[in-house]
Structures are given as C-alpha cells and as structure tokens.
C-alpha cells in the first residue's frame, strides 16, 4: 500500500514535528533551565508552520485551513503562556515542549487526514504525547493517576475505533475517505453492519472530543494536569477531534447520514446537558472549566448533526475558533492565579477583578464569551452561528435544548463572574512585583482578551474570514 504525501496538507505538521525534534536535541546538548529559552524552537516552529500554512493556502479545503490555523494559534498560545511554569521545577521544559509539539503535529495531521489509517496514526500521535504531558509533573501522584485514567480510556476508545475501521474496510475494501464515501453509497450493503461500523468508528473521535458518554476522563485529567496542559487538551486536542470528525462525516460517511445524524444530535444534547449539570456543582475554577468544556463540546457537535445544510460545516469551525480563544485565555489567566496565589478555588478568586484587574477582567470577559453573553458579543454571535444550521436542518427540538443549556450554562458562569467582581474580603491583596516569566503569561492573556474584544466589536472579522 503506497500512501501519497500531499505537502500542501502535511507541510505545517512536518515543520512542527521538526521543531519538536530540534527542541529536544537543543535541550539535550545545551540544557536550559528557563522556559523562554527552551520554548524558543517551539515558538519558531509554530510560527513557521503558520507562515507555511498561510502561504500555501488556496480556496479549496477552507475548513481544513481554518482548523489547522486554530490548532497552530492555540499551540502557540499554550507555548508562550507556559512560561508561567518557569522555575517551578516540577516539569522539565525540554521534554514538555517536545511532547507538546509532537502532539500538536498529530493534531495538524488529524484534521488534514484523508484516509482512516492516517487518521488513526494521527490520533495516536496526538494522544500519547498528551498523556505523557499530563503525567509529566514530577513527584505528583495525582498527575500520575490522571495520566493513567486518560491512558486507559484513550486506548480503549482507539481500539473500538479500530474495530469500526476494520469493519468499514471489510465492507468497502478501501480506507480512503472519498472512495469510502462512494463505496458506502451502494445500496446492497447490509444496513446493520454499516451502522455498527459507523458508530464504532465515531467512538474514538467522540472520546477525544469529550462527548457524553465518553466524558468521564475529562474532569479527572484536567484536575491532575498542570493548568496549561489542561488548556491544551480543552482547546487544541478538542479542535483536532472536531475537525477530524467533521471531515469523516462530511467526506467518508455522507451516505450513512441516517445512521449518524440522530446519534450525533442525541449525543450533542446529552453532552451539553450533562456537562452543564456537572459544572453547576463545582467550587473550583479549573473543575468548572473542565465540565464547561464538556458542555461546549455539545455545542460544537450540535451543528454537525445538520452538516449538510448551508452553514453546517462552517458553523462548528467558527464556534470552535471563539471557544478555543476564550478557553485558552481563561486557562492562562487561571494558571497565573494559581502561580501567584496557590489556588483556583472560588473563595480564593473572590474580588480578583478588583484586586488584580489586569488578570480578573480578562477572565471575566473570557467567561462571558463562553457563556455567550454581552458585552462579549462574539460569544453570543457564536451561539447564534451554531443554532442556525440546527434550525435550518429542522431540528427545532435540538435548538430548544441548546437554548435551555445556554441558560444552564449562564447559571454557573455568572456565579464565577459575580465572585470575580465581588468586593474582596479582608485586606487588599498586593501582588509582589511578578517575575518576567509571569509577565509574559500575563501579556498572552491580555493579547487574547484584546482579540476577543476586537471580535466582539466587529464579529464580521471572524465570520467573513473563516470558511
């Protein structure tokens, strides 16, 4: 079996991979203890991959371009914001950046994969380093346990997906998306086998996305991982999974629509509801974001149920862009808080927007974006964008479930906002002049927030330029 290599698609992934290896080599021969120095190859590689991606960009494959761009921007954000871990001595920076970039190249391959073998390889390339990232914190038992949970769940779901893929191969004799689509259009195929094959194939992707009922690993893993790794998992890893899912459904399985459409709709509804209900009970900001990211996965998945309407493919991508940016800003801000104050529990966060407005207000804005509430207009517009194809596809019940979940979501997002804006108890907290590395992370947060504010002022910026 020969696999043709399309450099337009794989270029960025290869650059990122090379960057990862170079970073590891540099670290081996010139070990550096600062994260800024160690992260330099990673930063350069991500930027170069972005340049390559934009330079080679043409109009076909717009969703893949958008998804790759989201992955790259997200990775860059994580790399820069990870400076917050400078001198923490818990995580070796060289290995961290190597694993992060390996995983990111897996994410890039995953969204541009055109056959199921590439998909599986990319999925593993994305998963295995990120499992290691979770468990990388030295001497932390919670981290090890989280990594184990993540590992087991990941392996099982990949195995299930492999089973589905082998069934698909057995039915059609091909693994290429396009030919698979053609193969499945024949009417003499046994319906039940096709249905089983399709459902099993989707399991691995739904798992990565954190959709119900494969969501249980998320809160546990996020709690054990360092904050920026959790941010990476919630943003980049999810973007890759969604991208791959959309491509598989759109190109490989359009003729099995009757099988997966109700399934995706139901999973989307269950995911957002259970995610939101879980988030209601949290009293730690990281836990809240973990559960809310499950709920957001439901919102990402919902328009996929209406994939073949006019905006079915662009809507989830646009929502994803907003979600990734807002979520990363929130995680980075929490990473700073955790570093400076040692906890992200609600009682520690009380009054943050007053004591430390340059961290608290961006966090408030990011949370409002996730909630879809003005003044974060872009969040609201994104909600509109994902509801539209669902309504177009005549799934009004799903649209109403989404509406109810917007309300449920607001219940806890607002609780956090109120805590952040409340008058602080006790004496005014004066943060010591932060070290340079913390300032870098803070700058990233502010840049991300500036992006969100710009998008809120002019949502067209995003909506007209992404697919």
């Amino acid at each position, binding site marked *: 079996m020969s696999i043709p290599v399309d450099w337009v698609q794989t270029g960025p992934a290869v650059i990122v991979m090379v960057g990862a290896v170079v970073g590891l080599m540099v670290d081996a021969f010139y070990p550096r203890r600062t994260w800024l120095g160690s992260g330099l190859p990673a930063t350069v590689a991500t930027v170069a991959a972005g340049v390559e991606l934009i330079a080679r960009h043409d109009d076909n494959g717009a969703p893949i371009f958008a998804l790759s761009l989201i992955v790259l921007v997200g990775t860059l954000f994580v790399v820069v914001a990870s400076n917050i871990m400078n001198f923490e001595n818990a995580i070796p920076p060289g290995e961290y950046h190597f694993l992060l970039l390996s995983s990111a190249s897996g994410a890039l391959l995953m969204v541009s994969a055109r056959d199921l073998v590439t998909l599986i390889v990319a999925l593993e390339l994305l998963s295995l380093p990120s499992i290691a990232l979770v468990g990388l914190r030295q001497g932390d038992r919670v981290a090890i346990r989280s990594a184990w949970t993540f590992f087991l769940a990941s392996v099982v779901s990949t195995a299930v997906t492999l089973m589905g893929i082998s069934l698909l191969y057995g039915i059609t004799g091909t693994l290429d998306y396009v030919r698979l689509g053609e193969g499945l259009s024949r009417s003499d195929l046994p319906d039940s086998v096709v249905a089983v094959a399709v459902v099993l194939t989707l399991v691995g992707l739904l798992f990565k996305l954190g959709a119900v009922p494969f969501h249980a690993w998320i809160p546990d893993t996020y709690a054990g991982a360092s904050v920026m790794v959790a941010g990476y998992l919630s943003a980049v890893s999810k973007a890759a999974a969604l991208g791959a899912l959309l491509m598989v459904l759109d190109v490989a399985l359009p003729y099995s629509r009757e099988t997966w459409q109700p399934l995706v709709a139901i999973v989307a509804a269950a995911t957002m509801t259970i995610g939101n209900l879980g988030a209601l009970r949290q009293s730690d900001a990281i836990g809240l974001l973990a559960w809310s990211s499950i709920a957001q996965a439901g919102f990402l998945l919902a328009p996929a149920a209406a994939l073949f309407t006019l905006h079915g493919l662009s809507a989830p991508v646009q929502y994803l862009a907003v979600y990734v940016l807002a979520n990363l800003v929130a995680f980075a801000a929490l990473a700073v808080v955790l570093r400076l104050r040692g906890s992200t529990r609600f009682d520690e966060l009380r009054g943050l927007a007053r004591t430390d407005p340059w961290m608290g207000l961006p966090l408030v804005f990011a949370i409002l974006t996730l909630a879809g509430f003005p003044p974060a207009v872009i969040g609201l517009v994104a909600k*509109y964008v994902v509801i539209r194809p669902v309504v177009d596809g005549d799934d009004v019940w799903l649209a*109403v479930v989404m509406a109810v979940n917007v309300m449920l979501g607001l219940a806890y997002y607002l609780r956090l906002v109120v805590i952040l804006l409340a008058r602080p108890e006790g004496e005014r907290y004066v943060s010591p002049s932060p070290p340079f590395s913390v300032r870098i992370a803070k700058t990233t947060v502010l840049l991300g927030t500036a992006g969100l504010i710009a998008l809120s002022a002019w949502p067209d910026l995003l909506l*007209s330029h992404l697919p």
Partner: protein
Amino acid sequence: MIVAALAVPFVVGLLLMVTQARVSGPYAAGIGAAAMAAALVLYALVWEGRDVVSGEVDVAWIDPLGARLHLGVTAVSWPFVLMTAGIGVLCCLWLVADDTAPALVGLVLVITASAMGVFSSLDLLLLFVFFELALIPMWFVIAGGRDSGSGEARRAATRFLLFTVSGSALLLVGIVLVARDSGSLDMTVIAGGPVVAAVLIVLGFAVKTPVVPLHTWLPDAHSIAPTVGSVLLAAVFLKLGTYGLILGSLLLPDSFAEVAPYLAIAGAIGIVWSGFACYAQDDLKRLVAYSSVGHMGFVVIAISTRSEVGLAAAVFGSVAHGIVTALLFFAAGSMKDRYGTTSMSAIRRGLYGRAPWLAVVFVFAAVASLGLPGLAGFWGELLSLRAAYEVGVVLTRPVAWTALGLALLGIALTTAYFVRAIRLLAQGEPTRQDADRDLDRREVVVMGALVVAAVVLGLWPRTVLHLVDGGFDETVTYHGSYQPLDGS
C-alpha cells in the same frame, strides 16, 4: 443622532464604573442626569414624523449572518424611548443623595442606555444584544442594594436573571427561525415566520413582561431591589417585554394569531391573580410589584387583539404604567428611606398628618394606578377594554369577552387593594414616629416631574395616541415594506 444618544450614557456610565471612588456620589449622579438628559433631548429631536423611520442609521455589521447595525425609531418605539430616557434622568436625580456609590449611577446609565438600544434597534440580532446587555448590570443593582450581602437579595437577583435568560434563549431560537424564513434579520424586511417562532418569541418576551405563570421572579426582585432598581425594573424592563410582544404581533402577523388567544387568557388571569395577591400584601413595594403584573395583563390583552385600538392601548398603557409605577416606587422608596421598611403596618397610619406631601403624592400615584379618569392610568385600561370588547382581528368573541370579563373583575380588585393601601397608610389617626419628615427638594423634583407627566398624559392622551391611531395599517412603517394583516 441616535448613535450619539446611545453612546453618551454608555460611555459616561462605563467611565463612572471605572473611576469608582474618585468622584463623589452626588457629583456622579449629576453627571449621569446630564448624560441622560442629553440622550432625552437627542431622541426628542430625532423625530421626523410618524410615517417614516426617524433618525435611521444603517451600517454593515455581520454580513455572513445578515445582521446590520440598523437603528431608528418608529411611531411605536418613540414613546418607549422617551419614557425610558425620562425615567433615566429621574433615577439619576434620585441618586443625588449623600450615600450613593458612583458605580450605581454607572449601572443605571448602562441599563437605561441598553433599554433605549432595544427600543431603537431595527435589527433583531442587535435588539437581542441590547436586550441581554442590560441583564448583568441589573443583577448587580438588585443584589447590591442597601440589603447587599444578604443572601435573599442575591437569590432574588439570580432568579430574575435566570428567568429572563431562559426566556431570551428561547427568543434567540425564535429569531434564528424567523431569519431562516425571511433570509434577513432586518425588521424592515421580515415578513412573517413559522408558528414555532411566534411561540418562542412570545414566550421569551412573556417572561419579561411578565405574563402569568412566568411572573414568579418579579415580586422578589422588585421588592428587594433599591429604589432606582425597582423603578428601572418596573418602568423600563417590563416595557422591553411589552415592546417585544408588540413587535412579535407586527412582524409575525399570521403565526402570532395562533398564539394570541392563549396570551389574552394568560393576561386576563394575571389581572385577577395580581388583584388577589395585592390584597394580601403588607409590604408596599411587593404590593406595587404585584400590581404591575395586573397592569401588564391589560397591555397583553390589548396586544393580543392585534387591532388598531389594541395597539394604541398597548403603547399608551406601557408608557402610562412606566410613569405611574415609577412614581409609586419612588414614593415607596421615600418611605423606606425614612422608616427603614416598606411594611405598611410598621409605617403606621395617618401619613396625611405626619408627612402631608408624601401622603398626597402616594395617594395621587395610587389613584392614577387604579385608573381614575383624568390621570394616565385610565386611558390604557379603557382602550384595552374597548379592544377586547371589539374582539379585534385574531381573537374569537368567547375568548375576547372572557378576557374582558376577567379584566373588569380585575379593575374592581385593583380599586379595592389600592383603597385598602391608602386607608392603611394615608388616612386614620396619625401615630407619630421620630422618622416623620416631609419631602425634601430632591424628592419634590423627581416626583413632581412624574406627577406632571401623569396629569398631562391623563388630560391629553393624544400626545401619545396620535402617534399610533392609524393602527396597524398606517402607523407602523418599517419603511413601508411591512405587510399588515388585513384579515385576508
């Protein structure tokens, strides 16, 4: 001009919130009042006549969604805007007291400006953005009042917010449905929508209005909020609901007809329900809050008839309720400032003897609210009843007349509970308290303005009514492209 009228209070409000303690409270309130007055003047000047969209601004915004920054006032929305701006000025003047936090003035400005934004949006998504924008500031006004820190205030504020947001989330789905069928979010283009959309939109605004049984957030929120909060909630926020229902009846004529009977009956039940609830209240603010449910019931019945008279009644009733209820809440606020409570049994009887002008204003507001002819409250109710009597375009006679009967019963109840309140507070043998004190200058200015407005509207109802007396056929021009329902 509209952009300036919206931008001034927004910017000033945000600045006041940011500067926090660097300006004194009374000074901040003065600035706020000036900003709102500027907005009021600008909105008054923008008027170009009832047959056109005044002060239209139309700029590209989000092309892929077909949403535009489309602002302008029509014959229907202009009275709402002016009332809102006026109430905004008075709220700021009310805050010219020593213990005002500048941030509260900022919140009031942002809330009022958002409401004016809703009334002057001609694009549904823009309307929705303004609609939501006011909610979080309102949470802080309700929860952060004088009883701040009390869990009760927070719970009331959160309940208010969650009710409204559940409504508005459904509203969003409704808007998407309308946009799908019309291919546009622009009110001047939209022509009809599916019944589901009408149901969702009506539900969304019915929570805000509020229509029974979706009113349960209202009494707590209104009675716990500080005075300006209650005034804004009653005079401005409830109008977002009625204005939205009017819009729904105009933009989705056919599908609205399917929903109208349920709306009419719910409105009528609300009138009677609030009558009984009010009769049992001891707390003056709760009484006024419940009475709002009843007044909104009249407006809802009027809207559901979808007739010429009904539209006039709805617009007039909304504006009149804004003025009269604001006056009632200001009066209740004065009592709260003096006695620390609004419980009628704690304030005791005989206010006529103890604080004559306060008592006079209260009694004036009460009789205006119960619909004494010659005052503002009268015309809204009368026209509403007439609209129900004439049945209108979309209701059937049994439904309309059932609503009419319940509404008549409600009027009797309204009279009964306001007379009871007057007897409990104003009349009787005065039992003096240390806190007895008549109106000060600030209160005289604020309440005086409202009294004058109530009298003017009561004696010359045409000031508002001539705007809409052409009914649905002539008056509401969304650039002439709106096709009214003419029964065919």
